[in-house]
């Protein structure tokens, strides 16, 4: 069976979108840098559990999400700190805190695994979000592939600019074809696990704009740049995202 077969959609879906979604699903199934293929697919699955999690609903209603204790409804595959990461990122990301992030590290989650899980989770949320907006059922998750994580850490990491270590702008900007030394924080955010940045880049090019199109303002989609940024800004505001 072909994944992401959009033939049944009442609105014809661009081939480049379907292709990008297939590549992301394949990538999620593959062994990662710090997580196995099975763990990565489990991360994707956990984002779907989070949407129906009773604890997450209760925390979302609470004045402070850290005032409510309990256990998440979860798939039972991943360690508790990673389950908490994925559930909170999925359901209440605007109220995350550095103190909470550090508490996950104290519970044994590495910053590297945190960033890789974040990359896989947001990719799944994004593609599921597209399906939801289009009125399409979510795609079944892929079968994981075997293999051992590479556990390779970049050697140009900078600490202290964000909660997570990030690569310095110079090397990353060269790798991504950005102006020399100019990699914005939102691109560097996942760079502790470089494969997740490249995945971000690939999916953004199909769902939003590629980096070159971002720097220009010509119309390249059925909606022009003002319309694109209106939708982007509105979604960010509804998520109470300051950025």
């Amino acid at each position, binding site marked *: 069976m072909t994944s992401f077969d959009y033939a049944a959609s009442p*609105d014809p879906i*661009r081939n480049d*979108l379907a292709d990008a979604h297939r590549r992301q699903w394949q990538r999620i199934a593959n062994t990662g840098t710090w997580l196995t293929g099975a763990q990565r697919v489990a991360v994707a699955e956990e984002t779907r559990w989070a949407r129906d999690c009773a604890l997450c609903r209760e925390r979302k209603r609470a004045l402070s999400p850290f005032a409510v204790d309990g256990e998440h409804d979860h798939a039972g595959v991943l360690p508790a700190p990673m389950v908490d*990461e994925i559930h909170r*990122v999925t359901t209440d*990301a*605007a*109220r*995350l805190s*550095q103190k909470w*992030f550090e508490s996950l590290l104290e519970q044994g989650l590495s910053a590297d695994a945190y*960033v890789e899980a*974040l990359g896989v989770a*947001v*990719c799944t*949320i*994004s593609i599921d*979000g*597209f399906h*939801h*907006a*289009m*009125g399409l059922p979510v795609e079944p998750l892929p079968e994981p592939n075997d293999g051992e994580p590479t556990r390779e850490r970049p050697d140009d990491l900078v600490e202290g600019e*964000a*909660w*997570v270590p*990030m690569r310095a702008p110079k090397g990353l900007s060269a790798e991504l074809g950005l102006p020399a030394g100019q990699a*914005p*924080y*939102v691109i560097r*955010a*996942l760079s502790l696990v470089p494969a997740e940045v490249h995945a971000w880049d690939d*999916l953004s090019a*199909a*769902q*939003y704009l590629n980096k070159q199109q971002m720097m220009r*303002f010509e119309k390249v*989609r*059925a*909606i*022009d*740049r*003002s*319309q*694109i*940024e*209106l*939708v*982007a*800004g*509105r*979604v*960010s*505001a*509804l*998520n*109470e*995202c*300051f*950025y």
Partner: protein
Amino acid sequence: MLRASIEYSGSGGQLGGITEGSKAGDAGIEHGERLTAFADAAVSGDPAALATARDALREAAGSAVVVDAAGVIGNFQRMVRIADGSGIPLDTMVDTMSSDIREDLGLEGFESRRLAEQGALAKLFAPVARGAAMLGLRIAGRRGRR
């Protein structure tokens, strides 16, 4: 980016659609009201409202617009979580260029407004830098439309 694209296009659009959604009407942007209604319904999780908003947008603007808007919605469901989940600050240039509209739109009250504190020098030169950048975009837009 919305303000920059408005300056580039010379459309006279407004930023109210970001915080007020469809209540702001089209806000000077073609199909603006239907686009924000679609975004609102997609984020709200109400399937009936979403179907209504999607149908309305399709009827007014066509299927390709629905697909492209859904792509942007999916993309920014991801971007906000990357930013919030990694604890990144605002880039200095973005901070400088957007300080006035953040105030106007009430974004300073968001919980995720925590790491990005502008330096005194950036605050001092922000209006000049903004003015120069917007002028540049208007000129580039006029050239692009010729």
